[in-house]
């Protein structure tokens, strides 16, 4: 299982080691880690709650991984961890790891997975600001555009 949805934090080094699993053919490992930011539109964020659609999120992330692997056959490992629940500024939200013998493949596949994850994986963020308001984060057009560049 290379996709995990979990409340718990993750350790990036441990996840890379587990994915490499002693294989000495790897050559290149790229990771992307998304972190909760403290300020959004000049408002200070107290915390952020991630809601998700469990059955679909798992399937959709596995589909995204499969697409990446078909597109880059030189990809020798992928791992996606997405947290849900309430997180504080600075907390890790998401981890993507890609392995390949070529750095270009590892970089491109990690970007591809993140672009699809952002606009296709069923997660929704609600932020609570210092003013006491809680509001759903609006999707960004640029995330849709980032995904479309792969077509």
């Amino acid at each position, binding site marked *: 299982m290379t996709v995990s949805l979990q409340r718990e934090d993750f350790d990036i080094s441990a996840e890379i080691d587990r994915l490499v699993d002693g294989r000495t053919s790897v050559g290149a490992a790229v990771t992307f880690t998304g972190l909760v930011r403290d300020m959004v539109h000049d408002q200070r964020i107290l915390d952020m709650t991630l809601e998700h659609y469990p059955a679909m999120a798992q399937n959709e992330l596995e589909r995204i991984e499969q697409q990446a692997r078909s597109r880059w056959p030189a990809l020798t490992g992928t791992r996606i961890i997405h947290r849900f629940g309430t997180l504080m500024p600075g907390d890790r939200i998401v981890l993507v790891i890609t392995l390949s013998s070529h750095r270009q493949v590892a970089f491109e596949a990690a970007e591809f997975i993140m672009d699809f994850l952002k606009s296709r994986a069923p997660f929704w963020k*609600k932020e609570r600001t210092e003013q006491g308001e809680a509001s759903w984060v609006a999707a960004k057009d640029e995330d849709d555009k980032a995904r479309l560049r792969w077509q």
Partner: protein
Amino acid sequence: MKLVYFAWLREHIGLDEERIDLPASVKNVRDLINWQQSRGEGYARAFADPETVRVALDQFHAEHDEAVGTAEEIAFFPPMTGG
């Protein structure tokens, strides 16, 4: 069939999920959204702007012109903001 709701659609409707039979007139996703608008105040608010509503049929993203077919679980949610 089961309908499930997420994020602000869930909040407007006041339900996580419900079991319901769709009227025979509902053929595609667009028909389904139009029908939802007529089901009361919360639904009207949730589906007021159909372009902001995303739909998944049995956990697969569906376009608004796609046939609802024999889906067993239909999900409604806003554009995604994970990652």
